[in-house]
């Protein structure tokens, strides 16, 4: 009898179906047969684990260790164990818990503790799990074998003991079909020498003539079982060969050309086998485009957290909802457990904070001007709405400066009215009244911030989608009087800096994907479609409009759920549901792939720019048609008509154009090269 080779899993299983009646026991190789890896080389997991160990060591105060040195220690200890095994056994096998314990003892010295090994093992298995995918065709076949009462053994020559392998098989959803999992790491008897088959025969009292073995290695899964009279089928899958060759090519090219780093990461993120099922158009865009962008942003946050040793992150509502959800899934791969900061979702908004921020500092001109950034805000009523002020107590003061309720005071609408308005701002009585009215909201805000532990850490990262950092500016003003206020590290998805941010020593903002201060030509294409990103990330709950004191403490006031804004938002949410699903499905795969490759944002930026330019500056017409949001509500702006001159000067950008314009040749190139970006 000689072993048979098959070039596709389908043909192998068809043959196995035909002979299954003649077998009582089926043993199957685990890696590259039952499970496939997204990576072409299994050793790619090891550097990620070494980086994790370096992070753990840093957290324990051992300083910044080089991960390559840690990798060298692991390799040396593993090689020593294999050499030692070879003196007693035919196979040169190693056992992960043994050599890893020894390696960690060398690295951590007197700080070594048993839980470190547990943490490292958990991390390595989590990464392995993320890189492994069960081949879809096995599920049906194994179910059939189980129904027929066959004994199914999973056998592997690997350094992970069977207890660890069981976790991998379980995560792949195959454990219920399997009688036992056997690893060469437990006994140092491997398939490579054929000793594993002897062990199985003895342990389970197997009859070789009624035993079928399936694997991918012609020697250990073909020749060795065949020599013992076991029926053997060897899988040399063409499809897999093709997939792995591609993954390897991207890996090789990315070493020479930084452009391919991001593309390689996306290759490792790709869903395979049963994961890759038919999806709606928006899901695919969410996964392949928005997912990568959000991953890049998450990587940027991780880097800031590590650099500054920050222990708390606050995600601003409502776009922060999506960022936090993404973070929660991706960050466990990118940060060691001991370094992972606490993450919170903070219920804030421009509208809610604008009023509360005036309680101590009043309303300086720079801040009051923010109310008139939207050209639809025209008069003093709009100003009061933005800063949550009651207009009645101001009427006497307004009269003093010749301002009426309906007089345009926005500089966009009337310069004369604006001059009167700025004179009013200088009035002490006016400032006193502003502070008086803002105080209750500020007190409620302080209580809310205390309840989420905002003042417990010396440094906090504040995450928001963008664009000018207004929420952070208002938040800083609201807590500026407190001595225990933390240092603010604001990270924006993109910073347009439409108005200059008053950066201070303890308060800064930085755009991660795009920052206007850094003059990124390609990155600036993001400004074409800001609303698109806002809508893609927006939380499916109403916006916060204020904070109110109550007897028990405070209450966060949300916008009513039944108004026109809410209806439009819920329709938009329904439209973007598959897009968001795609984004969140990409989160853990991004985290795992980024951990494996160890890339920083600087490595991923060329591909990010390519993605931005190709999708935002050079989109296909049908992409604009599908991806562009249907509704976008801005509760900061009023209901007045903007002056004609302003409307004329407001430039239309590519994504604002009707679809027929997008069909013109070279229209994209024209916008990309010649039109200034909106701010």
């Amino acid at each position, binding site marked *: 009898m000689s072993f048979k080779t098959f070039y596709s899993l389908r043909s192998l299983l068809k043959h196995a179906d035909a002979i299954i009646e003649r077998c009582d026991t089926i043993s199957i190789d685990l890696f590259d047969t039952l499970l496939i890896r997204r990576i072409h080389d299994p050793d790619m997991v090891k550097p990620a684990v070494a980086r994790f160990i370096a992070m753990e060591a840093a957290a324990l105060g051992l300083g910044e260790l080089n991960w390559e040195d840690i990798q060298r220690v692991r390799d040396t200890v593993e090689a020593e164990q294999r050499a030692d095994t070879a003196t007693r056994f035919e196979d040169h096998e190693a056992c992960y818990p043994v050599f890893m314990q020894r390696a960690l003892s060398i690295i951590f010295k007197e700080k070594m503790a048993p839980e470190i090994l547990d943490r490292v093992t958990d991390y390595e298995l989590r990464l392995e799990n993320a890189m492994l995918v069960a081949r879809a065709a096995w599920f049906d076949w194994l179910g059939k074998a189980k129904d027929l009462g066959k004994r199914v053994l999973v056998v592997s020559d690997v350094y992970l003991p069977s207890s660890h392998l069981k976790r991998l098989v379980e995560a792949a959803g195959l454990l219920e079909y399997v009688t036992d999992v056997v690893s060469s790491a437990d006994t140092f008897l491997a398939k490579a020498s054929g000793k594993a088959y002897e062990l199985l025969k003895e342990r389970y009292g197997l009859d070789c003539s009624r035993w079928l073995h399936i694997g991918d290695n012609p020697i250990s899964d073909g020749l060795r079982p065949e020599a013992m009279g076991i029926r053997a089928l060897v899988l040399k899958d063409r499809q897999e060969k093709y997939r792995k060759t*591609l993954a390897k090519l991207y890996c090789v090219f990315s070493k020479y*050309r930084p452009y391919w780093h991001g593309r390689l990461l996306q290759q490792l993120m790709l869903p395979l086998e049963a994961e890759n099922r038919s999806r709606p158009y928006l899901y695919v865009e969410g996964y392949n485009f928005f997912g990568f962008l959000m991953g890049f942003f998450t990587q940027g946050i991780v880097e800031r957290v590590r650099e500054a040793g920050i222990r708390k992150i606050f995600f601003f509502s409502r776009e922060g909802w999506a960022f936090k959800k993404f973070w929660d899934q991706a960050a466990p791969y990118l940060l060691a457990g001991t370094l992972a900061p606490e993450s919170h979702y903070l219920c804030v908004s421009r509208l809610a904070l604008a009023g509360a921020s005036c309680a101590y500092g009043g309303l300086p001109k720079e801040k009051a001007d923010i109310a008139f950034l939207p050209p639809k805000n025209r008069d003093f009523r709009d100003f009061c709405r933005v800063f949550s002020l009651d207009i009645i107590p101001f009427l006497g003061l307004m009269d003093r400066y010749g301002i009426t309720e309906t007089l345009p005071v926005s500089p966009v609408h009337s310069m004369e009215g604006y001059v009167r308005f700025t004179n009013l701002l200088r009035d002490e009585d006016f400032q006193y009244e502003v502070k008086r009215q803002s105080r209750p909201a500020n007190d409620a805000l302080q209580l809310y911030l205390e309840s989420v532990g905002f003042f417990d850490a010396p440094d906090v990262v504040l995450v928001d989608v963008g664009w000018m950092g207004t929420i952070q500016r208002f938040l800083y003003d609201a807590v500026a009087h407190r001595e225990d206020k933390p240092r603010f590290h604001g990270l924006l998805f993109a910073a347009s800096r439409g108005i200059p941010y008053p950066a201070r020593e303890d308060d800064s903002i930085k755009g991660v994907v795009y920052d206007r201060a850094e003059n990124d030509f390609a990155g600036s294409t993001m400004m074409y479609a800001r609303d698109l990103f806002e809508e893609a990330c927006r939380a499916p709950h109403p916006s916060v409009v204020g904070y109110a004191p109550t007897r028990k403490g405070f209450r966060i006031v949300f916008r009513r759920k039944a108004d026109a804004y809410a209806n439009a938002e819920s329709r938009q949410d329904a439209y973007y549901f598959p897009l968001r699903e795609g984004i969140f499905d990409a989160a853990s795969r991004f985290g795992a792939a980024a951990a494996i490759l160890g890339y920083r944002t600087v490595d991923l930026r060329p591909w990010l720019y390519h993605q931005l330019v190709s999708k935002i500056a050079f989109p296909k017409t049908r992409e604009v048609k599908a991806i562009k949001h249907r509704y976008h509500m801005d509760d900061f702006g009023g209901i007045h008509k903007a002056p004609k001159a302003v409307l004329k000067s407001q430039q239309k950008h590519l994504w604002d154009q009707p679809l027929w314009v997008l069909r013109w040749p070279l229209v994209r190139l024209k916008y990309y090269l010649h039109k200034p970006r909106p701010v």
Partner: protein
Amino acid sequence: MAPFETDRFVTSKRYDVTGCDIFRVTKHFFISKLGPYDNFAGGPGRKCLVVLLLMHVFGRVISWSLIESEHRVIRVASAIQNRLNRIRLRLARKGP
């Protein structure tokens, strides 16, 4: 049915990223030659692009036709490689 309503796969049959495939990369490579354009840290590189384009498009056929004689192909390829290396060494020793 409008094109945006149709169902798609995240991973294409060519193991490419749907919506940002190798053809789109190639298109932008050519656009970048037309005028001032971000060079994306050196860009994809002509050789890399050609190899990847060929692999994505014809890789399936290549792996289909070669896998059964893979060991022979590798043997022949490594023999050619060795011979080329030897020639290169000899030329290097001779000098210009």
